[in-house]
């Protein structure tokens, strides 16, 4: 039919609009990119918990209360990860999502123990906007395709727990870092993107819970090998870590867990520092 949009022209090269000096981040300036601040809340039963390297769990508080507080402070997205994800715990997770969605008008992503179309849909119906799959996806990759066709790519997130096994090489782990799959992280994220996954959540097992900064090499490798949005997780200890990652890897979201839960960083601080560095973050006005 050839219907054109007369007023919706192409703007030309985005480098002219980002306001980031091309010399400081040459590889990244080609895409207009706004980095989302994502609060990662790990849930066990009805509790928000936090561990190190996905082990050694400690109770932090109520996930619903924390999610609401982050929303009030202007979080860009809430990420719930059920670390037990047993059949027994499903109803508790659905209830947490439902209670959160009652008052939190920001996107909510939920992962942990999703094994079927029915699990996926139950979470959407409870108020999740996106659902992340990890273990089941490695066993049954075609489930990703089925979900993407049914619910749209934009609601299907592939969650990868990445363990560095050699310089520049990472293996996909499952079950909160307990099981090895033999799958190369880069090959797996590419395969999943081809199957229709709309986003990749990459958690560095090596950095998770350490507060020692992100695995920047891993995030660079992943963002360079796929054209779906990528969320980086694991290692945020300070505002500096956020800015260092956002200015060197083309990530679309950065997940923050205990650094937020324990008030080591605030969202205002991250926003101000990121803007000061020429990075684009959401305006709350």
């Amino acid at each position, binding site marked *: 039919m050839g219907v054109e949009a007369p007023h919706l022209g*192409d703007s030309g090269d*985005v480098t002219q609009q980002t306001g980031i000096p091309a010399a400081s981040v040459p590889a990244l300036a080609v895409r207009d990119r706004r980095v989302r601040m994502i609060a990662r809340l790990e849930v066990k039963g009805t509790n928000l918990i936090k561990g190190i390297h996905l082990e050694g769990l400690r109770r932090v508080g109520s996930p619903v209360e924390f999610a609401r507080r982050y929303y009030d402070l202007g979080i860009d997205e809430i990420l719930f990860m059920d670390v037990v994800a047993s059949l027994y715990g499903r109803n508790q997770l659905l209830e947490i999502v439902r209670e959160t969605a009652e008052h939190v008008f920001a996107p909510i992503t939920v992962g942990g123990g999703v094994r079927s179309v029915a699990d996926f849909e139950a979470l959407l119906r409870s108020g999740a906007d996106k659902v992340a799959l990890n273990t089941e996806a490695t066993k049954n990759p075609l489930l990703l395709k089925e979900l993407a066709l049914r619910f*749209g790519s934009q609601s299907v997130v592939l969650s990868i727990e990445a363990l560095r096994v050699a310089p520049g090489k990472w293996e996909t782990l499952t079950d909160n870092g307990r099981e090895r799959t033999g799958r190369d992280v880069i090959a797996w994220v590419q395969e999943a993107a081809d199957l229709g996954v709309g986003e990749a959540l990459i958690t560095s097992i090596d950095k998770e819970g350490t507060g020692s900064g992100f695995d920047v090499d891993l995030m660079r490798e992943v963002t360079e090998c796929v054209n779906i949005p990528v969320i980086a997780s694991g290692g945020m200890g300070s505002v500096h870590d956020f800015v260092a990652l956002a200015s060197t890897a083309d990530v679309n979201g950065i997940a923050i867990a205990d650094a937020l839960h324990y008030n080591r960083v605030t969202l205002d601080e991250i926003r101000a520092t990121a803007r000061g560095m020429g990075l684009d973050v959401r305006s709350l006005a």
Partner: protein
Amino acid sequence: MPSPTVVIVDTGVGNLFSIARAVHTVGGSPVISADPRSLETADRVVIPGVGSYASTMSYFAECGMDGALRTYADTGRPLLGICLGMQLLVTEGHEEGRTCGLGVIVGEAVPMPSITSSGSPVRIPHIGWSRVTPLSEGRSSDWMGADGADIDVYFAHSYTVICPDSQVIAATFRYGGHELAAAVRVGSVLGVQFHPERSGPAGLRLLTSFVQSPDGT
């Protein structure tokens, strides 16, 4: 003033709960319904945004919702399509082949441009918060509830709407170096590509305007 009845059309899949909660928060009485007759008494109607183009249209056809929505649009009462719901408003969708849409706005839903003008790849889907600029010419009412200012709102989509009549485009956003339709509007029919129910206070202001103002816009 009595609380306006806002019918949220049940598309059979996805997150209707969040829209219902947002509508309730801004003072509307949300009713989730797959019954075409529910539109007869609705003060406002929302077409939500998750699922696939073809399967949602065939679901509508099965239950007679497509005809009911066209009839409702003709009454001049406010209709809001969100994300896929906006895309369903137009003539035709190009998702997995061609599918006829509701056709209340002339246009097409097509895949988003996957490269910039300089040939760099663009990450698709577009997921995240982008700045939306209202195009004000010839439109006096403040349907975004932002006094004509830009707002940052949440998007999650792979398709975009193009319209032969540029006057239909009510707001735009930039992604991958392209300026795309963030909202389309013809009379009392409004479509938004973003998710106002997921866009914090800015989104709730838009929904307040939709639910509370006399003409919904």
